[in-house]
């Protein structure tokens, strides 16, 4: 009850702050929400893997980069729009994820965490260096008319395309919630995530479930790779910074808390956008990320000690 009341107070305070910011400088709110959508849409699949397979996938951003490259070349060859490539890209990356899981990840699941980190870090390097060798480091981008779609309110003109990431992130969070609570496979995945040994005793194929979840997460990342191509230029190192940001957002939200990733992303996106509104503070936008994660984790550990 007290927890619910505290959450309500926090939400009301957050909404009031957002309202005040919108009155002061609406673009802070607009760009903050747009950025938050992008962060969340990339971080949610990592949250799924960490919550159920219990592995930190340090090749997360690199999988997205590979999907973006695959989409780029498919679109260049066929004239296809990257939006139409979202599903094929997701399917290809799911398959890649399944193969990577079977060949490598599953063998490291019982290994110390450091070994798992080194393994996925190595996979990430392999993917980025492989792409670098094959296609060089030169950046690539598909120029699309609709990404410049804009809305004008009075004097204010802003792009509306980035809102697609907000929609995608919300759809991912809702979809995963439904999948994990309403489907047999999803419930099995939740059970495996909570207690793999218990799940195995009741007859759930733990290894298969891990593989499926990993492939599903990679499918989501793959779809995001195609979508990411609409917004950004791609190059072999484009995924790396998103791996770190996703990991920190997942850590802020708490392991397995997918809706929490939305909240953490919103907090980060708005904070960055707020700081960027002041020229003198612009350089602090990157640091706020670390400040937030320290505050949240410190707060959580203090709360844990108290309880």
């Amino acid at each position, binding site marked *: 009850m007290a927890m619910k009341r505290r959450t309500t107070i926090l939400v009301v305070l957050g909404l009031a702050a957002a309202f005040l910011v919108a009155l002061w400088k609406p*673009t802070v709110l607009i*760009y903050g929400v*747009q*950025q938050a959508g992008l962060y969340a849409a990339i971080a949610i699949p990592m949250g799924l893997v960490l919550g159920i397979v219990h592995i930190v996938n340090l090749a997360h951003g690199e999988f997205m980069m590979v999907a973006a490259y695959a989409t780029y070349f498919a679109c260049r060859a066929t004239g296809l729009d990257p939006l139409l490539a979202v599903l094929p890209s997701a399917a290809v990356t799911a398959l890649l994820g399944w193969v990577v899981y079977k060949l490598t990840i599953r063998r490291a699941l019982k290994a110390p965490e450091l070994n798992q980190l080194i393994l996925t870090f190595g996979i990430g390097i392999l993917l980025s260096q492989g792409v*670098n060798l094959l296609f*060089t*480091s*030169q*950046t*690539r*981008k598909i*120029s*699309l008319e609709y*990404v*410049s*779609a*804009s809305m*004008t309110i009075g004097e204010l*003109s*802003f*792009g*509306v*395309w980035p809102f697609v990431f907000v929609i995608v992130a919300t759809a991912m969070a809702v979809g995963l919630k439904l999948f994990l609570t309403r489907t047999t496979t999803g419930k099995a995945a939740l059970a495996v995530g909570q207690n793999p040994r218990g799940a195995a005793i009741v007859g759930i194929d733990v290894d298969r479930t891990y593989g499926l979840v990993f492939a599903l997460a990679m499918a989501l990342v793959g779809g995001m790779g195609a979508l990411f191509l609409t*917004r*950004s*230029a791609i*190059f*072999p*190192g*484009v995924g*790396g*910074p*998103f791996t770190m*940001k996703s990991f920190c957002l997942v850590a802020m939200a708490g392991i397995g808390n997918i809706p929490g990733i939305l909240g953490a992303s919103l907090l980060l996106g708005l904070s960055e*956008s707020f700081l*960027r*509104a002041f*020229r003198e503070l*612009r*350089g602090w*936008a*990157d640091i706020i990320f670390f400040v937030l994660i320290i505050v949240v984790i410190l707060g959580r550990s203090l709360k844990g000690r108290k309880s």
Partner: protein
Amino acid sequence: MKRTFAILVIAMLATGAFAQTGDTIKIGGIWTLADITGKQGSMAAQQAIEEINKAGGVLGRKLELIVVDDEGKADKGAAAVEKLMTVDNVELLMGGMASGVELGKIPTFKKYGKVVVSTGAASYKVEEALGADSSWYFHLHPWDYNQGASYVEGWDAIQKQYPKIKIKKIFLAYEEGAFGKSSWDATKTLFGTGGRYVVDGASFKSAALGGGDYASVLEAAKSFKPDLFLWAGYDADALPMLEQAKAMKFSPSIYLGAPPGWPIGFGTSKLSEKVMLYGMWAPTMNDTNAASKAFYKGFVAKYKEEPATYFAPLSYSAVYIIADAIKLAGTTETAALIKALEATKYASPLGETISFSKSNIIAHQGIRRQKILQWQSGRQEVIWPFEAKTATPVYPFPAWK
């Protein structure tokens, strides 16, 4: 015993004489091979080496390029110099791009004191680290302050030549790293002093470094209402920034980008039309410059791809400058080579005759000017300097529809 010793001495001398005349002249090249500038820079250097060898080599010897990857890291750069000097025994060094890597190499350069023909490193900090006594260092690329001064000169000349082009307010969007910040410092100093121009600027995090959101910097630029909007970032920023500018309906009279390279296919985007840029070379110069055409044709024939940045013709030029100097010196001995390099007059594919003279600190600075170009119908056209001009500027940058 004496006889055996005499035979041995004669044999050793004979081997030495053979080495002097029969072996190759080894040139060590250091580039960041994962980067397109380094990759194509090394390819263009190899192209020049093969052309020179095909024409008979230098002093009856073939040239040999030994390439080492610095991986874009200062420590690897220093290790590359060490390896080339001690393991490969190269006669002289060339290459380079990032200033940070060059800074790492300088102590090892100084240790060996061999001739270095540098194709990159624009930061004045490199020049400060070299010091005035680095007579063995020949810097081809303009220093950052040379570039800034040439832009002021260029815009002054353009406004004089085309009176409808009027620039008073300049806004610089610069990436948060060293490259962007030094561009901002130079722009403030060069354009801001004297009151002829009003300069403002704001930073952004480049997509190349994990950023890619330009909304706040474009918003600041839009509210400043500049006549010239300039961004100093990387190729990854080029199209997304234009797309965002269009979404925000930000269309200054001049939209200018200054990345080291452009993304593949940038010219095919409708948004690129009338965007201006700074650079040293473009394939359109093949129409007006025979050396450029010869370089370009050779590169495309050999590698089946286009040179994407000016670092390719720059590295190509560096090899020819070295070869000419060795010919003139008649040896690869450092003092003689320095003297010969000082006499360089090389008509380069970059559209200018390269020679070396003193810059702020070092004694041997090559190119001092960048060019002002404009994307027109998918091609980079040179609009200044007028002697290298391939097209007249289209002004103003069209308002977004």
